[in-house]
């Protein structure tokens, strides 16, 4: 379980995250929801230590984060753009003992990627698939995905969504932020809704659907008044 406890973050004069606490379980897909600028990406980056929180703690399975066991997949490439897909894989193999080349090869095949392609030659959708493939091939216990569908074509989106319901995600905890909630609503187990730097609502998606007959988007409309 990922536990985010009482975290706060300020950007210059703005308190972006007031006081946020939530959990994301292993084996579940947890979705962080919020309007633009509510701090969703900041929370993911903060969990990974990329943007240190001013206050608060993050624990993974009761301990400080072990980067071998948590993968972060942002909405852009995190390799130099002149790298080839092959080079990215070589880099991951060098530093992640858990990196599974066979799994990566399987994903390259499924996503129809070409290892000799340079990252700067790829479309946004293809880049997103490369990112995801590298993250999953790391074989982590937890996968943090920041806007994985942002700006990509519908077919790439479909391929990625398919991945979430495949065996590759079994037993992994997924923490995802996205604006395209309708694409994966039926896959999400838990939603954490942010508003003005705080948790507005935290709920089990299936419960809300069956008991109240509401989708995540319905709850969003209630909360954000749209």
């Amino acid at each position, binding site marked *: 379980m990922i536990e985010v406890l009482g975290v706060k973050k300020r950007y210059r004069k703005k308190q972006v995250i007031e006081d946020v606490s939530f959990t994301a379980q292993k084996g579940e897909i947890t979705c962080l929801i919020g309007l633009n600028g509510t701090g969703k990406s900041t929370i993911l980056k903060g969990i990974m230590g990329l943007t240190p929180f001013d206050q608060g703690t993050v624990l993974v399975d009761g301990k400080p984060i072990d980067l071998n066991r948590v993968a972060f997949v942002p909405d852009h490439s995190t390799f*130099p753009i002149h790298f080839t897909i092959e080079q990215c894989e070589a880099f991951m193999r060098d530093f992640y003992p858990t990196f599974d080349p066979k799994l990566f090869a399987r994903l390259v095949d499924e996503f129809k990627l070409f290892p000799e392609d340079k990252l700067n030659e790829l479309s946004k959708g293809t880049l997103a698939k490369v990112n995801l493939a590298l993250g999953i091939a790391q074989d982590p216990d937890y996968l943090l995905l920041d806007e994985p569908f942002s700006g990509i074509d519908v077919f790439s989106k479909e391929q990625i969504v398919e991945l979430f319901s495949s065996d590759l995600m079994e037993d992994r905890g997924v923490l995802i932020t996205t604006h395209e909630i309708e694409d994966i609503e039926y896959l999400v187990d838990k939603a954490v809704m942010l508003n003005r730097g705080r948790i507005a609502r935290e709920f089990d998606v299936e419960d809300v659907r069956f008991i109240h007959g509401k989708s995540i988007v319905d709850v969003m409309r209630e909360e954000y008044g749209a």
Partner: protein
Amino acid sequence: MNLLKLIGWELDRVKKIYGLLLGVLITIQFGWLAVFLWRNTVLNEEYRREGQSLLVVFHSYLMSTPYILSIGIGLIVMLVFSGWIWYREFWGRGTFMMRLLTLPTKRIQLFISKFITIMMMILGLIAVQWFALVIEYQIFTTWLDGQGIRQQDTFADIRQLDVFSLLYPTSFVNFIIHVMLIAFVVLTIFTFVLVERSLWQRTIFSPLVSIALIGGVLAIPSTIFYVIEQYLFMDELALILVIGFLFSVATLTIIARQYLQKKLSV
């Protein structure tokens, strides 16, 4: 082992531009040597017709603008690259720095690998320049001997020239000390970058704050030295210098480490 891998990757990323830099320096120096020797050969012929002879000295070649420029280019490129080796990782919404910071390896290893990469590049430049100097001198003496032109300057003489007495002092211990000073400059640049990159999201004045912090650290031993210098003798001053140097290195390292591990923001 991770450290070696990190260094390997750093060098891999930089080998093309490094090779280009070496190529540029060699081309300037040897190209200019060819021009220099040709000009003097022609001049000597003119002198000969008038019943005189020319004396060519190697240090005129070494003290000429193209040669000094080639060394200057190397120096400036390495200074700039000492900062660039960090800044390039922040290009485009964080890019590679995100990858580096989320590696399952201690962050200080990132620092050490970049530091060693820079120092290896600098030492590589110094090594290549040494080879170049030896070969240039050989070409110089061989060509002029072949043309029957008088020449001056032994290889030992050139070593006394300012630039080369710094790069290749006659005492190897002094060379080590010079390299330590170069390393200190690199450490200072690294610390500046890490502090600036940690504060950039909090203030637009992050570069100034970084300079002020580092300036403050260096000001402490400098001020002490300046005040007590008039009361102390060479051996005592040397001790103060060493203490001041160690203090600066320790403090900058602690600051760099602290910011890298706890405050760096992507």
